[in-house]
């Protein structure tokens, strides 16, 4: 089974299929200032009262390497699909393994701060790295001077420029990064130098025009022009960075793959150019090996047995197994992740069944009926904490809003007052005469979701709402596309054939990452049906706040807009049709003799700082 975490606009991702834990595989999303207002010649104006949030000062301070040499063995239970780290597939495991071979311009630390990988600066408006100029945005990118690719070729601005051209090539086949962001770039200056300027233009987004604010997620990874040019664009996915001959690829990161025995292991050796031109140090390990197990239980046993030094890709569901197998707490690194379990309610369907007023009343009442603590206790054994916010408390624009408390009496009184009357069977009938019978959907791949939905059905029964639950295959039933799946398939989220569905989203660190999830025109029933606003939320105040996000560059204004959105989301009176349950834990195991291994729940994944790791 393979974990699939599809990234959405570089930051929000769905976790609905088999297995898997947290981080998004694809580019690190920016939390940075974004687009200019729709007015011409907009220069960002910082708030005079509040300082702009600090997005780069991290608490991470690696200890000096005390010992070098030897073989580092990393345990995983899900194998990558491709070396193309997040390009021709989108598994977080690809990034874990090959993120250390192919670096990007920027990455995210474990404490959600940005830092340069192949770039020396993190360009923002406040530090002058981003300049807004009417309908354009110029981003200055300073590459590490003297840095070389693994074959000794210099890393230059030409690589940036060519990657844009290559990503936009019509011959691309199966590149999961698509065109978003790349299509905004009109050119990259700098030639064979290392001081580059990328020119972005505004393009329509929703009901506004926006400069791509997720620029810190592009060039992740940066690819070598001279290597890409060796085959046609269409052949790149199958003829470059091949599983069969990984050693023929050209890399930029600290360790590069030399052998890949599918289903068993991938071997890496230090990239001499990295250590001589970028890190300017000796590689702490002679070899790094990813060893693949078939499942988490075997991987845990392997770690305990001393087969691996670090074992990754666990979540809160594995904590009980860790205890059972006797893994000491000192070797367990469990942090709050970015993946949150949630219930998506189909608001359009509620409106269709019960009318606009009925839907709003019902949704509000449902918010009060969820017993999240009970769900957490019964489903996760109390290993996670309830949330009412879609943002992780770790992101800089998180607003701490008190959560509504469980109040069944209040839910009942809201429905009573709105004319939802209880029938003889205890099920309510809406004022328009429709019986409140709803359909709850979950995927077969995660049985606990069926159990959660059953619990929710019991809570809703207390307020006179009948919830029938249905468990269906993840694909194509639950998430099949508009044309892929018939319009009458029960539970299909794209066609809106559900009342409530449980899956998980991955919240990123880009504040605009929620745009395609909540903006009204991203309703998949509309337009080209590619939107992911499955909940069909259509709130003018929400659209307005999302447009504020897309058109401002002032971090304090971004915080204000995000605060508005979070308030709309959390307050049951707004009947927001998404109910978050809890954030997953991201868990890794590390031997007590391992140093600088710091769990990272962002899309950078656990191996984000592998160049600093050493073993005593």
């Amino acid at each position, binding site marked *: 089974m393979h974990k699939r975490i599809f990234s*959405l606009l570089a930051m929000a991702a769905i976790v609905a299929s088999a297995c898997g834990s947290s981080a998004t595989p694809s580019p690190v999303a920016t939390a940075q200032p974004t687009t200019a207002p729709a007015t011409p010649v907009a220069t960002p104006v910082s708030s005079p009262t509040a300082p702009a949030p600090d997005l780069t000062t991290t608490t991470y301070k690696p200890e000096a390497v005390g010992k070098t040499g030897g073989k580092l063995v990393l345990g995983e239970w899900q194998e990558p699909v491709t070396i193309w780290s997040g390009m021709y597939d989108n598994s977080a495991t690809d990034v874990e393994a090959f993120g250390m071979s192919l670096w990007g311009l920027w990455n995210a630390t474990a404490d959600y701060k940005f830092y340069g990988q192949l770039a020396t600066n993190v360009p923002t408006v406040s530090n002058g790295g981003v300049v807004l100029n009417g309908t354009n945005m110029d981003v200055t990118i300073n590459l590490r001077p003297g840095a070389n690719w693994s074959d000794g070729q210099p890393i230059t601005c030409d690589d940036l420029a060519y990657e844009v051209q290559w990503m936009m090539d019509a011959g691309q086949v199966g590149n999961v990064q698509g065109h978003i962001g790349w299509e905004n770039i009109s050119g990259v200056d700098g030639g064979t130098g290392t001081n580059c300027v990328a020119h972005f233009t505004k393009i329509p987004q929703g009901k506004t025009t926006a400069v791509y604010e997720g620029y810190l997620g592009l060039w992740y990874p940066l690819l070598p022009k001279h290597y890409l040019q060796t085959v046609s664009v269409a052949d790149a996915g199958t*003829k470059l960075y091949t599983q069969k001959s990984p050693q023929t690829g050209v890399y930029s990161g600290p360790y590069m793959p030399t052998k890949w025995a599918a289903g068993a292991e991938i071997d890496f050796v230090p990239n001499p150019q990295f250590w001589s031109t970028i890190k300017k140090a000796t590689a702490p390990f002679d070899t790094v090996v990813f060893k693949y197990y078939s499942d988490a239980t075997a991987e845990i046993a*392997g770690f305990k047995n001393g087969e691996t030094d670090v074992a990754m890709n666990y979540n809160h569901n594995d904590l009980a197994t860790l205890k059972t197998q006797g893994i000491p707490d000192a070797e367990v690194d469990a942090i709050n992740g970015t993946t949150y379990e949630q219930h998506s309610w189909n608001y359009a369907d509620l409106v269709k069944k019960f009318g606009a007023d009925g839907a709003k009343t019902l949704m509000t009442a449902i918010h009060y009926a969820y017993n999240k603590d009970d769900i957490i206790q019964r489903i996760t054994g109390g290993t996670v904490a309830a949330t009412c916010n879609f943002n992780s408390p770790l992101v800089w624009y998180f607003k701490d809003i008190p959560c509504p408390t469980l109040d069944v009496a209040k839910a009942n009184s809201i429905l009573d007052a709105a004319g939802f009357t209880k029938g003889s069977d205890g099920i309510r009938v809406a004022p328009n005469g429709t019986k409140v019978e709803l359909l709850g959907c979950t995927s077969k791949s995660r049985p606990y979701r069926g159990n959660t939905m059953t619990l929710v059905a019991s809570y809703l029964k207390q307020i006179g709402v009948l919830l029938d639950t249905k468990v269906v295959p993840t694909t194509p039933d639950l*998430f099949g596309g508009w044309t892929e799946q018939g319009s009458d398939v029960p539970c299909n989220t794209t066609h809106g054939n559900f009342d409530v569905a449980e899956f998980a989203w991955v919240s990123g660190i880009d504040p605009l990452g929620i745009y395609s999830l909540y903006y009204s025109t991203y309703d998949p029933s509309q337009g080209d049906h590619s939107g992911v606003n499955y909940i069909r939320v259509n709130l003018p105040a929400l659209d307005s706040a999302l447009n504020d996000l897309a058109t401002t560059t002032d971090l304090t204004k971004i915080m204000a807009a995000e605060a508005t959105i979070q308030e709309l989301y959390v307050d049951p009176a707004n009947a927001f049709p998404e109910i978050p349950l809890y954030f997953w834990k991201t868990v890794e195991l590390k031997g007590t003799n391992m140093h600088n291994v710091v769990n990272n729940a962002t899309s950078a994944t656990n191996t984000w700082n592998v160049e600093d790791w050493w073993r005593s």
Partner: protein
Amino acid sequence: MIRYIIRRLIGAIPTLFIISLLIYGFVLLSPGGPTARFAMNPKITPEALAAFEHRWGLDQPVYVQYCRWLGVCNPDGQGLGVVLSNHGLPNLLPGFMGGGDNGVLHFDLGLSSASGVPVSEVIAERFPRTLALAGVALVLWLTLALILGVTSAVKRYTKVDNAITVFNYVAYSFPTFWLGLLLIIIFSSMLGWFPAGGMWDVRNTPIFGTSDYWAYVGQHPLNAFADLVKHLALPVITLVAVSVAGDSRFVRAAMIDALRQDFVRTARAKGVPERRVIFRHALRNALLPVVTNIGLELPFLFTGAIATETVFSWPGMGAQFITSIGQYDYPVVMGISVITAVLVVGANLLADIIYAIVDPRISYG
């Protein structure tokens, strides 16, 4: 006999054709598909999706896809010309006769849609690993099945027979994956006796099958052997435990039948030693139904070890099959399925031939 074998081989052609057609149909009818990995990704435009489908021929009607996979149709052909090779001759002809070079008929199983590696290479890399596991398991399984079955039959209704029967029922009742996990937790996690997974120790042993590996075997043969045995132990125990139970019951029943036959009584009456009666007279006759059973079971040892390979992270064909299904990698799934079908047909033929060897009364003349 040779005429019989040729007749059977010719008869296998339509069988394999129908099997391949059915497998292809089932694979394509199953939910999802190679494009499933783009689902929910708003970055993928309809144009990008169409380009992917075109690249992998998924935009063609199913019968054309099958025809290309089979090698009757030319992937470059259009319209009715699709059945002609680039040389203008029927594509199904061998390449040296001016036919095509694609498709199963030309021994081309295509490329893995997940990794881009030729399917034949994927299978060639995995097959020896499965063979190592399945081969050892098969030898142990047959030996144990015979020993337990014969013992049980000879000592029927005794405590020994009862103990073997109980063992058989218990072992047969274990789901493979459950038994495998149990063994991992006990013998790897708790006792640390055996590795939790894999086929070799990644810290010390090079990748199995590579030139580095054989060099290592040459330099440290005992270490290499011990390493392989350590990694084989738990998966082999799992495979043998669940397989031996059924077959030993089969042997027991056949042996009991044989021991009741007149020729056994005659042999005993003639004063033939009991050991000789059992092994020379009864067992040889009891083997007939067992051979049939083994003929049917043999192919599934290769792909039927799917659960065992998966639980023990054994990088063989079974684990690859599961991975490929998860990736909607149709070419690999088809490749492994067809090879399994060939093994089934071949193993049945082999069983029939062994039949004649075991029982001289049978003639295929």
